């Protein structure tokens, strides 16, 4: 018998696993934050959000960055991620905030980070963040997804998207927290455009809300009447924040990533796309 035993047999008087929390004896110290933008392509798209978090924890240790740890019997590095990426989806716009105990030099750090991560995960940009900046979880309001639909022509796809966008209401059964409810999901679809043909079908870009009635790409495909086996690659290309009514990315890439094919769709949707300077102002980057 060992601690790796698989479940078998039975159990009585099971008790919840918990450990007492040690009081925080440390006075509040200065904290520094960095925001990391990364992409996830290829085989690694099959790992879970939790796996990505563990890989970043290991990479941070390999790099020896002065990461802040939580207090207690099981101190954990203080990382916070944006919206989880579903298993199987790729992304050009994932984010991670890291709390540090001292300032670090960002020069060359993105490359060193990439080297410490498995193939397929590339750290594209790192910025310093104000201690008071809104958390990713709070600030993200929508995402743009690049979705490949297999075995469909541009004309067919355009017809489907046009009728969906023309609808004023789209009452849909949705399961949330185990409960089925009918809601109008039309407001969650902020835009759909047909991007062009792919080798085996057609690509669309969909701008979907993540707040209130959030919508996932898989739910959109069901709504569009697309069969599961027509689902091709799905890539998150942008996550958008709403800061004082302005839309901007948590970090704008200084150079567009080569994979960032759908950068220029919905040009009208986000007026302020040259947001390098804007992001700098918002986050107080010196």
């Amino acid at each position, binding site marked *: 018998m*060992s601690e790796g035993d698989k479940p078998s047999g039975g159990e009585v008087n099971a008790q919840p696993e918990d450990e007492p929390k040690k009081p925080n004896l440390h006075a509040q110290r200065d904290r520094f934050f960095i925001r990391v933008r990364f992409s996830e392509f290829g085989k690694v798209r099959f790992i879970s959000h939790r796996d990505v978090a563990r890989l970043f924890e290991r990479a941070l240790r390999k790099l020896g960055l002065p990461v802040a740890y939580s207090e207690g019997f099981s*101190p954990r590095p203080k990382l916070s991620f944006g919206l989880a990426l579903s*298993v199987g989806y790729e992304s050009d716009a994932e984010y991670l905030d890291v709390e540090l105990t001292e300032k670090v030099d960002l020069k060359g750090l993105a490359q060193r980070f990439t080297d410490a991560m498995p193939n397929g995960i590339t750290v594209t940009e790192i910025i310093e963040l104000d201690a008071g900046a809104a958390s990713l979880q709070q600030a993200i309001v929508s995402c743009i997804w690049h979705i490949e639909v297999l075995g469909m022509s541009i004309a067919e796809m355009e017809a489907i998207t046009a009728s969906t966008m023309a609808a004023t209401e789209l009452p849909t059964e949705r399961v949330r927290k185990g409960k089925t409810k009918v809601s109008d999901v039309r407001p969650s679809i902020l835009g759909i455009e047909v991007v062009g043909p792919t080798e085996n079908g057609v690509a669309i870009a969909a701008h979907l809300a993540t707040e209130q009635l959030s919508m996932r790409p898989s739910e959109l495909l069901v709504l569009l009447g697309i069969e599961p086996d027509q689902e091709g690659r799905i890539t998150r290309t942008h996550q958008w924040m709403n800061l004082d009514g302005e839309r901007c990315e948590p970090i704008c890439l200084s150079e567009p990533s080569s994979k960032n094919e759908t950068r220029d769709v919905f040009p009208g949707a986000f007026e302020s796309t040259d947001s390098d300077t804007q992001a700098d102002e918002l986050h107080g980057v010196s």
Partner: protein
Amino acid sequence: MTTVWPQLEPLLPRVQKPARYIGCEDGAKAKLPDPKLVSWCFTYPDTYEVGLPNQGLQILYEIINERPDARADRSYAPWTDLEELMRSHGVPLFSVEHHTPCNEFDVIAFNLSAELTYTNLLNCVDLAGVPVRTADRDDSHPLIMAGGHCTYNPEPLADYLDAVVLGDGEEVVGEITDVLVKHRSQPNASRADLLVALAQIESVYVPSLYEVTYDGPSVAAITPIGTEAQSAPSEIEKRTVADLADWPYPKQQLAPLTEVVHDRLNVEVFRGCTRGCRFCQAGMITRPVRERPAEQVRTMVAEGLERTGYDEVALTSLSTADFSDIADVVTDIIDDGDKADKGPVSVSLPSLRVDAFGVGIATQLQRAKRTGLTFAPEAGTWRMRQIINKLIREEDLYEAVDAAFANGWIRVKLYFLIGLPSETDEDTLGIAELAKNCVAIGKKYNNRASVTASVGGFVPKPFTPFQWFGQNTQEELQRKVDLLRDATKKMRGVNLKWHDPKATLAEGIASRGDRRIGPVIEQVWRNGGTFQEWSEHFNLDLWLDAMADHGLTVEDAVYRHRTEAEFLPWEHLSAGLHKDFLWQDWQDSLAEVGLEDCRWTPCYDCGACTGYGIEHVVASAKPPAGGSQGTGQDLASGGAVPVVLLTSSERQSATA
């Protein structure tokens, strides 16, 4: 180069945990498929999460990949959802490095660590497109081999395995590769010639070169067949690596992308254990004790943490607290971690000794995270513990538990076995009693203190003093579980967990049987019985039906006691232990006579050292604090045969 990735990739979004199938681990060798190289596919016949951490496979994988004339990939059993898709889409079993079909390798080599994975082994062979029976394979098929603790009774799989390795694999894997390299240069040599050549390697057993005759429920004899020119040895000896210092593997432990069991750095600090617990097959078959030099442990830990970014390292062995100067080693590791300044590092010992010394170490160790504390008193009464030679007094346990609760732990786990020789209900209920008393100790410190008593059914394993003992029936084990359930129901803070007695019976069938059990395993597999280690898939009826269909009874195979005169199904193999030593220990056991640890007392000539001209390799000839078993008990000692006790440093100067 063939790869199934293009066919596999579209299936992955449709299965649970697709990260199991993508490989890409940190430390993985990307030696490209090359027809000029002898190729091994090391396979664990269970899920990726269970199989990836297996150190045995990782060690051999590295050793082979370091050779210029060979390469190795790895493979694992696909979960049932992917298996179904693979079969319907014609995708064969593949390696995770290059997604190469497994039947393109020269060898598919399995690690067998648990008998209930046997049906998975057959399933993997079949998924690879290789006939499951040795007799049906030809020159176009890979060799199917196995190693690992279960191969000390390989007979149930004898008709399915081309070759079996007994004991430590580090040296043998190279010798087998040499034979395979030579075989390639002889285009006229057949598969039969190759098998005969393999049988000449010490510790390699080729079951098809032996004939078995039966005498009712037991085996009458197992003898080599064939002409003199094609002879195989009449007895196959296990292999023992004399000094772990020569084998600092794995040098690059694999760090997976997805969570696995034992998800941490693992550094093996010693192999073998001579505490002499009579139920413990692992202890008996891995003798003698071979410690890794403390300095090497320290380097392997520091480099491993640095390379992988893990925040936890486990110092593995069968009883790590017995490692010479363990306290100093732990202090050094923690100091190194502090110096490296990369965040807190926790050190864990997979098994703790049942005494305050063990807890003291654990307290010192678990800085980065505090996991549960586990002790293994194994039996509920002192009488029973004398019989199994696990000489822990009640006071030792209470002292240990007290220290644990005093140091802030609130949950303690205790491991026990039921179904041990001569066990009475008083012994069984002693388990509940001990657990209750431990909770009472915990309540002194924390009102939420609780104790989990985890109870497993005992399977008497080959090459232990209990190999002659008939396993308790399923009904008897269930009755004992029920006794404990009733007894603990009202005990606040005692949480009872038990292993399903049905699974214990199936494990008995697979571990105690002879070649007649092979068709039973095959039938269980053919009727869908894969993943029998997993409660959601385990099905005893498949096993019992298959036994009945082949005219076999569990009484004969599992439950009956065996006699000294009986030829055991594993009698043609040797784990180094003299049969008369084991028999004497079995008799001593029934007389409740204990046996001290031969690391610190004279040798009993069990055979494990004396037979191979090797010795214990320990850095310190002094027993650890607390004395033998941590009890200081006076024990009867055996017939003394002086052996020289060499320390690691003496050993080095002797060979220099």
